């Protein structure tokens, strides 16, 4: 049977930042079965959908740009896939984009060129916050949004896989405060 490979981008907004990567993969497998999507399964006694994720998002980090690749036995338009998937998950997990890829296309982790994260702090640290530590993570922007102080960071090259939670730890030591929210905003390809 012919296989078709899709890369789907979805959100993982609060409170879903408290479910783990393993929970997430089970959740999508069940959504596929409910949707009746013609997903390709692994061989063996406990077949699982051929589903591959990018680097795992740490617990407590939200995302507007999560991705997975899946193989289907049927060619569907990206619009159809999105419509079908979004009937089967809550809005916090909304699938935003689907693209068909060549079967041999590099994995998500290998295609990534950079990741942007927003760190939300209480406004009171705006003054205290000095330069962000020099560790190869680029600070792109600081702004006050509502009652929060938001700093945008770009993780690229060898820092692509660096944990945004560890970075929060480092910032806490420098600035004396933990972010109230961390959001993965965008992946650069």
């Amino acid at each position, binding site marked *: 049977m012919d296989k078709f490979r899709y890369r789907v981008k979805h959100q993982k907004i*609060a*409170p*879903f*930042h*408290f*479910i*783990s990567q*393993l*929970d*997430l993969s*089970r*959740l999508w*497998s*069940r*959504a*596929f*079965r*409910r*949707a*009746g999507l013609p997903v390709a*399964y692994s061989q063996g*006694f*406990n*077949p699982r959908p051929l589903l591959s994720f990018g680097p795992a998002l740490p*617990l*407590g980090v939200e995302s507007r740009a999560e991705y997975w690749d899946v193989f289907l036995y049927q060619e569907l338009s990206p619009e159809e896939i999105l419509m079908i998937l979004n009937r*089967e*998950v*809550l809005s*916090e997990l909304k699938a935003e984009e689907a693209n068909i890829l060549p079967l041999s296309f590099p994995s998500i982790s290998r295609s990534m060129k950079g990741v942007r994260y927003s760190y939300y702090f209480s406004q009171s640290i705006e003054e205290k916050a000095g330069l962000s530590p020099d560790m190869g993570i680029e600070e792109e922007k600081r702004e006050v949004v509502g009652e929060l102080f938001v700093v945008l960071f770009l993780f690229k090259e060898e820092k692509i896989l660096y944990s945004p939670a560890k970075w929060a730890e480092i910032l806490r030591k420098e600035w004396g405060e*933990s*972010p*109230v*929210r*961390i959001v993965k905003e965008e992946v650069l390809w």
Partner: protein
Amino acid sequence: MDLEKTLSRQEMLSISKPARYIGREWNISLKKKEDVEISVALAFPDLYEIGMSHLGLKILYYILNSLPGVRAERAFAPWPDMGKMMKEKNIPLYSLENKIPLRNFDAVGISLQHELNYTNVLYLLDLAGIPLRSEERGEEFPLILGGGPCAFNPEPVSPFFDVFLLGEGEEAIVEIVEILRVMKGEKRSDVLSELAKIEGCYVPLLYSVSYHPDGKIKNISPSRVVRKRWVKNLDGAPYPQKIIVPYLNIVHDRIPLEIARGCTRGCRFCQAGMIYRPHRERSPEKVIELAEKLVKSTGYEEVSLLSLSSTDYSAIEYLVRDLSFRLKESKVNVSLPSLRMDAFSVEVAQSLQEVRRSGLTFAPEAGSERLRRVINKGLTDEDIFQTVEKTFSSGWREVKLYFMIGLPGEREEDIRDIANLVKEILGRGKKKGVHLGISAFIPKSHTPFQWTKQEEIKSLEEKMAILHSLLRPLGRRVRYNWSDFEVNLVEGALSRGDRRISSVIERVYRKGGVMDNWREFFSLRRWQEGFEEEGLDLNFYTHRERDREEIFPWEHLSPGVSKDFLWKEYQLSQEEKITPPCQEGKNCYNCGVC
């Protein structure tokens, strides 16, 4: 309540598995406030992963939310790290759906599956800000309802509840909610006396108990007996067509599909076998219809065919074959959790497409044929060997066998026979393994062994020592584990306890006792202190043979099985005589249910 505003990201990350507390699962029911006349919180006195695995909760959730104007939402006992945080931050126990504090519901239903959850009942009420005792609760508080197997002797927790429902809740819950609706705003005591008129409803405040100087019960009044509810026809009983799909990996993370209720075998130690009588089956057509609907609505990868003894289901071969075939394409497995110990069951298990070749589980319960006759588990040694041989030759690498020690009439040779069985099994399966689960027998109410004495820890330990000396030399092909006898002791006292024990439970809770069924939290010391401080003797409840005439704390509560029948069975056990499985109309022992 907005959880995200109440607890920061850091705080949520500091507790274990925050996903237990967020809700938002697939298939939850979110009714709008303006559509709700009566709200019921279904609270489970154990962790999310355990409560979410429980079938009764799913059935009641489905029935209640199907009723117009009724809202049912769930709550579970938080792990102690979260419980502590909730207390510190003044967060009341809330429902997972709409995050509503439990005390704002009209009623809170608490499922009593296990005696060791009793301190958690107080934990739930306390976290919810609801006074613990029925008599302390004013008009503004919800009614506290209890159900589940422990409701057949709920006396130790009876002062904490307003109403218990005995038996199966499918029909009664609708009647209860109807009364709550009609009588909304009326006096609590009036609502309770109205509820007491529903068949199966027990209002403990309406009963009083007096005691003899020796501690035995003198009288329970009034003498009116509350009889359990049971559903005559399973096909006609409501069964959820969709169930909540959690994100966490819960204990039973699959579709539970109940194919039968009750069991005809009449094992004398088994409370479930007595209180869930009679045996009833759901038709294969209905099971298949439900399975297909549930797979579609949940996306689960496994359907588990539940009953006390799955292979006793009359059309089990047909059902398993047909269902596996239908679900094959969507890669859904069928599983059978409870196998009878015979070759037929192994064949049925073999026909399941989900062939985890690691092991099959059986429950011979006792080591010798004699002792198995005592407990009415009519298995011969040869039955056991043949089943195990068939299991091994069909490709499984291990059998898991459950045994009990401390059974009535048990002798040292019965213990040695457990090891002899294992030796013989190892000889019959080269390179195969045996995994033993050994637990201490606990006499339960409403069983033929309700009169018997529970074995002391010291003598259980001696028996375990014999087993160690016999099993250890058998090498690595034998694995075994055994229950915590201290936990079993407390479980025994609670399961045949009376109302006076409620004060002990409250003391234990005040001393910090929660999650008593988790070894890391259980403390025998706390329970002993509780008994001492109340001037009660734990041994009175456990290590004491009762006589025929003694009035039990559960004398006024009936699962339908008569005391005469149970006594006769007790006598037969002492004569080491078997009672074969019953069958309505053909082989009936007039136990009183049908």
